[in-house]
């Protein structure tokens, strides 16, 4: 037995035979083969084209349901490309004129179009070369699948192994026989990982050279909880993981019993359990776990992995989609919190000696009001389509709130003039994540509609423990008495002014903390979707009045 260690994405256990996922069909088919019967090749090509168009239809519809129209559109564009007469004619002509195989004709045509795109000045158009490549690959794969599909379907449980998997490749895997995947490369935050997680598809990534070609056809077990892959597992391991899988299924079943139930304690105290979202794809998981809303929508992802600032229109569409999908439940959009460990090149932020205490979050937004106003306007416009709240990060003084409110008014006025609709009573809240904000929370509470405590940064700033320093990681303790007392102070000050307090750091999903939060009167907990139902079960088992006094006396 070999045990490989990687990063587990999603939660699950899968059994199967390991198969290499053959991606590099493409360069293989750059080989020119002369044929006698070109009609056979033309026919092969025609069939592959029909199959590819059907596949794209299915992909489009799946993506439309899973991740929304903006992302699904790409499959429609691919479909239109596949119907391009020049592209199709070129393939047919190469087959006929040169008496060659269809694969080569596709490869040749694809290269021609790719070159045209690669030579354009705009980076956007240069990237379209990969779309041409993608559709050409699909055509070639379709031809091969006509031969290969039987081979695949004779095995029931297969685990795919490859260098890396793109989101569209993942969406296309036949889930009837493929139970999971493992990759040599990959990162936890890639689209593929996020997608695998939201599909509950077991996977272990980033295995490096541990994954060897000779493992092909071996029995493997993926444990994506532990980030482990067992190749040719021994009996004891098989037995242990079968049991773990059963437990996990049972847990799922148990949790699904808590769907549709209220988040209320035995003695009738209620709390909102919301979900954190860092990507549009997460919305599906939020719906599935039956959260009371989105407590933290990290808008940074809209700004990351691109070359220039997103436009108002672009942002508006994303916020609108989320608001509509969640309506009437609330969606709390945290405005741009870039800086520190989250950087995008085009912001052109110079290197700082101490970035977590540097130019970040609201500090950037107030320094560059045009960027901030673009986002605020997009959020305001989307507020006409659902229940949106605005959350401002990294507040450390009152002035930042007053400036933000003034900008928000400006945005409203401009939108009104331009005839756009928006929710005039949109709620404005702030993140409490600096010790300064905690200490003046009585003053801040008079100016905003809600608080959201970000424990990750609050712990780092209060305990003077760098989140990213492995050496002192053990000191990063969200349950430190100092933090609990701060939460208590914030709750008391907020409730005196009649506003609500949420907690959106990782600690919100820690079920050992639920009693304390309930005793303190926290109004909302926001966490990763997979934790919501577990915490709901916990909430419904607690009698707060019986434990409150004792817990509070210890703080």
């Amino acid at each position, binding site marked *: 037995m070999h045990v490989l260690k990687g990063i587990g994405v999603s939660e699950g256990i899968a059994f199967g035979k390991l198969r290499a996922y053959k991606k590099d069909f493409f360069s293989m088919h750059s080989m020119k083969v002369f044929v006698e019967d070109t009609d056979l090749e033309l026919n092969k090509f025609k069939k592959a084209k029909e199959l590819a168009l059907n596949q794209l239809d299915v992909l489009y519809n799946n993506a439309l349901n899973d991740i929304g129209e903006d992302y699904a559109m790409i499959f429609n564009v691919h479909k239109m490309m596949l119907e391009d007469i020049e592209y199709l004619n070129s393939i047919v002509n190469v087959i006929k004129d040169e008496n060659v195989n269809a694969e080569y004709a596709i490869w040749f045509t694809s290269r021609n179009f790719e070159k*045209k*795109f690669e030579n354009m000045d705009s980076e956007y158009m240069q990237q379209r070369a990969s779309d041409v490549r993608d559709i050409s690959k699909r055509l070639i794969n379709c031809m091969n699948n006509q031969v290969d599909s039987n081979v695949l379907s004779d095995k029931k449980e297969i685990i795919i192994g490859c260098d890396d998997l793109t989101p569209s490749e993942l969406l296309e895997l036949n889930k009837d026989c493929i139970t999971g995947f493992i990759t040599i490369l990959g990162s936890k935050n890639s689209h593929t990982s996020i997608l695998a997680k939201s599909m509950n598809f077991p996977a272990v990534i980033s295995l490096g050279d541990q994954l060897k070609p000779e493992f092909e056809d071996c029995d493997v077990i993926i444990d994506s909880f532990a980030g482990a892959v067992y190749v040719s597992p021994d009996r004891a391991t098989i037995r242990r993981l079968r049991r773990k899988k059963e437990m996990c299924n049972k847990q799922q079943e148990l949790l699904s019993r808590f769907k549709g139930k209220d988040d209320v304690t035995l003695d009738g105290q209620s709390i909102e359990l919301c979900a954190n979202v860092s990507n549009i794809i997460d919305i599906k998981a939020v719906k599935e776990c039956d959260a009371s809303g989105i407590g933290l929508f990290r808008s940074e992802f809209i700004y990351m992995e691109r070359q220039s600032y997103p436009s108002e229109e672009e942002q508006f569409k994303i916020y609108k989609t989320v608001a509509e999908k969640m309506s009437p439940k609330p969606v709390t959009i945290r405005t741009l919190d870039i800086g520190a460990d989250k950087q995008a090149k085009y912001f052109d932020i110079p290197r700082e000696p101490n970035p977590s205490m540097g130019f970040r979050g609201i500090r950037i937004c107030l320094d560059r009001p045009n960027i901030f106003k673009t986002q605020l306007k997009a959020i305001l416009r989307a507020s006409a389509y659902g229940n949106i709240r605005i959350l401002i990060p990294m507040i450390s003084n009152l002035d930042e709130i007053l400036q933000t409110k003034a900008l928000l008014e400006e945005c409203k006025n401009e939108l009104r003039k331009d005839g756009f609709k928006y929710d005039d009573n949109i709620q404005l809240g702030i993140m409490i994540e600096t010790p300064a904000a905690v200490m003046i929370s009585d003053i801040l509470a008079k100016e905003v509609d809600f608080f959201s405590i970000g424990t990750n940064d609050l712990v780092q700033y209060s305990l003077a423990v760098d989140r990213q320093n492995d050496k002192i990681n053990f000191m990063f303790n969200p349950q430190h008495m100092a933090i609990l007392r701060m939460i208590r102070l914030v709750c008391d000050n907020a409730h005196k002014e009649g506003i609500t307090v949420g907690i959106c750091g990782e600690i919100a999903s820690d079920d050992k903390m639920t009693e304390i939060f309930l005793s303190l009167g926290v109004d909302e907990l926001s966490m990763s979707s997979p934790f919501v139902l577990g915490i709901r079960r916990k909430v419904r088992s607690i009698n707060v009045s019986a434990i409150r006094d004792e817990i509070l006396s210890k703080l």
Partner: protein
Amino acid sequence: MIKLECEIKDPCGVHARPAGYLRDLAKKFDCQILLRKIDSDNYCDASNVLSVMASGFKCGDNVSVEVISKPDKPVDERIFIPELKNIFGEKKE
């Protein structure tokens, strides 16, 4: 035949989405839409998405558009032209 000149106003030029809309427009009006840059003789047909994209119409380019309709199905310019301009990034007023 309708003949007109348009300026591309979409900052990204005629990329995937506009190219798709152009094709849909040709389908909707059941006509042929031929495009070329003012200073070029190379026409491309809007029904071919890839070719339109590969022609590389950029923001600020002036494009000559020729619309050839079927004899029994004349294209209504009042509807067609605003839709066309909208695709090229000119906002509807």
